[in-house]
């Protein structure tokens, strides 16, 4: 059975149909690219899966469990990690603190009475784990710098690291490479490959940089005006005539 099965999702905002009976399956440890022109419904689909938007019709099953009615934080605890197109970092905190609080929430060991007895501070084990995750995305050198001082590219990597805490089963990345320079892009590709290989994390990737997508994913799903117009292996999908017309343009 697939890790994520979203079937027949429809969503309209006012008169605009953002999703029209979209079906999307992601197997465990599979990497799927979600591409399409701006306004195709990619982010709406993301929000439906992560819980920020409720689809008008359709069903979402994650790891054998219907999650349609769960709040975003519940879905996160079930193992869906995500990053955002618009940064949603904890301004005023350092990358290390981002990871420490994420670890504590994932472990679910924080209690009010522990805080009041002075037992709430991060443990050495938690710090080690956070340092490890920072090293994975290449942020060790800025562990203690406030995130507001980081470049956009590195800030995106902080979001990625935060989403990786607690080894989610599904990692959803919304345009992770925008604002990254070449070196950071390579680090991003390496990180995505590594978490797949080492942790068996499935990846759902929205991205406009097709070279980057091709380097990471096994399967490509193309959306246009809320409909899936192609779904299959990367090379095959990119060659399909409909996709070329809708998204790539004739020059490609």
């Amino acid at each position, binding site marked *: 059975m697939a890790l994520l099965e979203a079937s027949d999702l429809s969503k309209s905002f006012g008169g605009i149909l953002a999703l029209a009976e979209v079906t999307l399956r992601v197997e465990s440890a599979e990497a799927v690219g979600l591409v399409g022109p701006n306004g195709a419904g990619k982010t709406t689909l993301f929000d439906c899966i992560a819980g920020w938007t409720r689809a008008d019709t359709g069903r979402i099953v994650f790891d054998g469990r219907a999650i349609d009615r769960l709040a975003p934080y519940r879905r996160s605890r079930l193992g869906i990690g995500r990053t955002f197109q618009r940064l949603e970092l904890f301004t*005023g905190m350092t990358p290390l603190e*981002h990871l*420490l609080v994420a670890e504590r*929430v994932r472990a679910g060991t924080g209690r009010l009475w522990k*805080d*009041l007895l002075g037992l709430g501070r991060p443990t050495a084990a938690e710090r080690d784990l956070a340092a490890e995750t920072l090293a994975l995305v290449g942020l060790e050198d800025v562990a203690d710098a406030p995130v507001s001082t980081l470049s956009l590219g590195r800030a995106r990597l902080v979001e990625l690291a935060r989403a990786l805490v607690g080894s989610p089963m599904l990692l959803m990345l919304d345009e992770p490479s925008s604002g990254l320079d070449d070196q950071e892009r390579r680090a991003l590709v390496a990180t995505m490959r590594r978490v797949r290989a080492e942790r068996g994390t499935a990846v759902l990737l929205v991205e406009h940089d097709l070279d980057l997508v091709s380097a990471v994913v096994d399967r490509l799903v193309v959306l246009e005006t809320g409909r899936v117009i192609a779904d299959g292996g990367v090379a095959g999908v990119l060659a399909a005539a409909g996709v070329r017309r809708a998204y790539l343009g004739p020059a490609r």
Partner: protein
Amino acid sequence: MSQFVSFVLPGIPYGCAYALMAAGLVLTYQASGVFNLAFGAQAFVSAVLFTIAVRAGWPGWIAFLVSVVLAAPLIGVLLEQVLFRFTRTAPPLVKLVPALGLLIAIPSLVQLVIGTSARVPSSLLLSPSEVYFHLAGSPVSGEELSTTVVAVVVIILLALLLQSSGLGLRMRAVVESPRMAELAGIRSERVSAFAWGISSLFAGLAGVLLAPIYPQVNAANFTALLVAAVAAAAIGGFASMPLTLLGGVVLGIVQEVIAGYLPSGSVLSSGLRPAFPFVVLAMVLVSRRSLRGAQPSLGDPLAGCDPPPPSLRPPARMAEVAIGSRVFAGVLAALLLVTAAVLVPGNWEFTLTQGLVLSVIFLSITVLTGLGGQISLCQATFAGAGAFAVGQLAAHFGTPVLLGLLVGGGLAAGIGALVALPTLRLGGLSVGLLTLSFALVADNVLFLYSWSGGGGSGLSVPRPTVAGISFASSSAFFWLVVVLLALVSLAVRLLGAGTTGQELAAIRGSEIGAASIGVNVNRLRVVAFTLSAAVAGVGGGLYASLQQSVSPTDFNYQFSLVYVVVVASIGIYTVAGAIEAGLAYTVLLQLIGNLPSRYSSLLGLVFGLVALSYVRHPEGVVEYARIWALDRAEQLARLLKRHEQAAGS
């Protein structure tokens, strides 16, 4: 029918004034993103100027020109130019605190310069007390008639202006993004200043229209006018001008009709009339969809080009400086305590104790706003709940005060949780307004019963006795307060450093991001409110025990506003800030108490003005000074180190 009409008619002038001020609120909110609570104070200023001018024998229309057409817009444009144009893209708290500061500082200034003034029967157009005609048997006086006519004419003029000149559209563009609007050729500064001038004129007009109707021209009446106008603006969703105007008029009328039909003499009849607008405000805030579920506004689309806002966390220090500053603070605190115990005369000992008790209440603001990032304008109400619980338990069951404090804290916590529930889906401004309306309902209804606030005479509260040791003497009570304050301070610090504090910090940074890592944002918002209310309840109970008596007026909504302004201006993010704020407040209060009584409003003026610095220094003035001093100390330490190294080599 004729009875109904006789209730409706006196409501119309109120309704017109509410509608005018509400229109001003919506206009500034739309044009500059600031919800200017200071309009209450601005209305008061115009009313006072008008009253003085009329009493000096000036003709009514000249008094009107000076107080409304000249003075009111001038004040508005001045405030916009020196203060509010810097807060356009700021978070809700940064917009709210200076407006609250002005709401407190302006009437204080007026009282300092002019003193209190009695009402003068007067009206703008017609002779005030003459009855012009009867409507269904009820007399219509010149006062009511002129108020209504003036309000209607002014509102029609505004509608024409907004419709014909395209100004409304330009204003919307300016709110969306002043810089984008400028790129499209709109002079956003001018549009914003114009909106402030017009809406201040409306506020001043509302004040002058109501000045003859209120029994006395005092600031509290105009704050009530303000809150009614806020309710009207909420009915219009802070956006729709026609709905806002209609809401204001209907509110004024319904308020009078309800007061007319309720049996006189009960708490409900005397309390519900003033509380009615707040009940409406609460209901509208909770039920109106456009105000719910709104994420904090996205801000300026061009904000990406700006440097990020300065971080509020204190920068990391060199080890020497960090240790040095701790030792310094410790020695200073110890010195202060020893001085307080040995040297200080009796009345100052009371003042210091009061300051430390107030610090406990102020720590509740540190928890809710500093850690939790939420705004509450009903902290004094939570404190009152704790105080009344201690008093009632002691009076009826002889419960020891310390046990009473626990129960009072628990009761306040429960109320805090209940207040938090409807705020869950609201943005910062709406949460502030909802808590304010709760505070006003408590003041006007809940706290007036003999089973809650003790009725008119209040409650007497004993000093605590623990295990046979009495803390009745003022010095014993002082040390008890020191110990309790230390405990609460420690708890707040641990809370901030622990899981809860870190999760709250994450929510402060980004609610969406926090939920994406599995933080239950709603639960934590309730937790923050609950803990904060508990701290406030304990502080309130201590306050009652210190005063040895407590009455409903000890915790009215004005204290909530003052508390927020004082703590925010001194330092809202640290435990030390709360304690400094408590001490500064009471010491200043005592010093001013030694001056002639006409200076009694200096306190409000000082803190109101200090709160204006919040726009530039949201960390608080004392915290800012501390960071500055530590920066210098660090420079010095570096210099010394370099010298040592040079000498060594």
